């Protein structure tokens, strides 16, 4: 058996998987997006993106995804940097504690947040006990952002930590040796060398945040329609698959644009195209 044939045989299950569960569904999405009930070609579904309600849901989704991604970077970078510098056996353990929630079901994690922040939730119980004013953030954008950050933070920490770990101590010593103070070492060496990790973190946080359904639904109390919720409603409530597919198609195009922009920032040979 020649090796080419063998490789094809080994790849066969994955090829079938890819076609069956990725390509064909996408073809369906595109088909529904550009047809109407009468199966005739139409652009109406895609153009309905400009419908104020839909457009607003896109804008809001982008806004919240952007804010939560930004917060994730701000939170994750110091943690990753501290662990990189500490270099003890403990630090890789603690890193795993940070990403431990990843192993739990996402819906459960959101429920946990709900019990924490609801009006009679744990946080308010504690605040009341301390005679402090209660917080009232459930069903607000703040709650959604909190949920997103909590849910996606590990996906920012891990790639950042990995890319920081790849920086050799002597590379940093070299910069110090050449006269750079600690701030200059950070801005001129650490930051640029951690860009691949940050970019993959951004893609792994921004895109799930952009398309989330559950977080906005549960922590936003259905008051905030993000694009994911709109699409979900079209499919499940109004059963308008054509409109849902049209909006999905627009969303996919946006995602490709985002990935195109972020990939532009990274080294050509880095392994970040994993999303």
């Amino acid at each position: 058996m020649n090796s080419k044939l063998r490789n094809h045989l080994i790849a066969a299950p994955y090829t079938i998987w890819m076609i069956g569960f990725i390509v064909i569904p996408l073809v369906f999405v595109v088909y529904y997006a550009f047809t109407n009930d009468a199966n005739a070609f139409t652009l109406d579904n895609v153009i309905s993106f400009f419908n104020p309600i839909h457009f607003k849901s896109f804008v809001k989704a982008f806004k919240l995804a952007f804010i939560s991604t930004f917060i994730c970077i701000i939170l994750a970078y110091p943690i990753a940097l501290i662990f990189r510098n500490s270099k003890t056996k403990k630090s890789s353990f603690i890193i795993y504690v940070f990403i431990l929630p990843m192993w739990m079901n996402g819906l459960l994690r959101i429920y946990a947040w709900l019990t924490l922040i609801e009006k009679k939730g744990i946080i308010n119980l504690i605040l009341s006990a301390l005679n402090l004013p209660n917080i009232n953030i459930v069903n607000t954008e703040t709650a959604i952002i909190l949920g997103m950050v909590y849910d996606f933070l590990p996906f920012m920490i891990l790639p950042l930590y990995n890319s920081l770990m790849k920086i050799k101590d002597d590379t940093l010593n070299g910069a110090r040796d050449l006269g750079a103070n600690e701030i200059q070492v950070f801005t001129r060496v650490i930051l640029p060398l951690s860009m691949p990790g940050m970019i993959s973190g951004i893609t792994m946080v921004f895109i799930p945040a952009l398309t989330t359904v559950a977080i906005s639904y549960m922590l936003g109390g259905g008051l905030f329609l993000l694009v994911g919720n709109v699409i979900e409603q079209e499919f499940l409530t109004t059963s308008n698959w054509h409109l849902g597919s049209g909006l999905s198609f627009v969303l996919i195009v946006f995602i490709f644009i985002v990935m195109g922009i972020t990939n532009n920032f990274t080294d050509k040979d880095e392994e970040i195209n994993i999303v």
Partner: protein
Amino acid sequence: MKKNLIDLSHISKTFDGDRVIDDFNLTIKENTFVTLLGPSGCGKTTILRIIGGFLKPDMGRVFFDGKDITELPPEKRQLNTVFQKYALFPHMNVEDNIAFGLRIKKKSEDFIKSKIEYALKLVNLEGYGKRDIDALSGGQQQRIAIARAIVNEPKLLLLDEPLGALDLKLRQEMQYELIRLKNELGITFIYVTHDQEEALTMSDTIVVMNQGYIQQMGTPEQIYNEPENAFVATFIGDSNIVSGKMIEDYAVEISGKKFRCIDAGFGKNKAVDIVIRPEDVEILEPNSPKAILHGRMTHVIFKGEMYEMLCVTDDGKEWLVHSTILHEVGKEVGVYVEPYNIQIMNKPTSEDEEAIDPVVYEAEE
């Protein structure tokens, strides 16, 4: 008279309760090529990093050009380091790497440009400015690392096993380059290596270290020809180290026979160690009048430039012999050593010298 550039005074350093350096003192003169030579874990890199400012000594002071720089961070020291694995910035091209230090110092771009050109010329890599670091070979990367350091016009260049990752031929080439650079730049080099040949080739002064202590300091010739103790003798090249007795000045007893030597002042009938280099063991016909010891050849290995042989003398002692003349296995021979090739050393008295374990340095890297 050359000025003192570096003065290390009573330096101690402990890692995790392990005392790596203890009361270490060393003075390095201006415009010399000094090599810290020793097995891994002997503390040579620790010393280099203390001079560079990357490690703080637990005790002791570091003086640079007469000024105490112990508390000065690395970026404020007038010296530059070439690291073991190049430590170039992978996200910058060759030019930007070389320009890094100058841009930090806010030099004008015209000045930087001329400096880059000068440095690339100095390391024989003209025209490589726009290349990516990944596109360079190990030797080229190391040259860029050197260029990146010297554009800052340091008074002192620290080199931490910079040739360790290169293959033999390239390493030898780079050794000559470094000697040339040192002469052209007129600055002080402190070079760390575990490779004795590298040290002998390049240095003005060699500092042999083991277990955090200086074993011997001197010119390459002194270190090779007059090792002060068994560690130095075995670490620098091959040698026969035998026990003997100093009968009187200029006469030593080896294997029960009297040899003339050129050392004096050890006292009478004093037990000593004797170092004889394998190339200095002369193999003669057994009936030669010069022969002092007698024995038989037991092993022969052809090494290219010479034969490496073993000769067992009548008292059962094994002698390592290097010679271009082949003496076949089983041959009865006479053995003679010229007086000036016999190096007498005191028997080790301190624990540090006795702690010498050949396995330590054979097992490294």
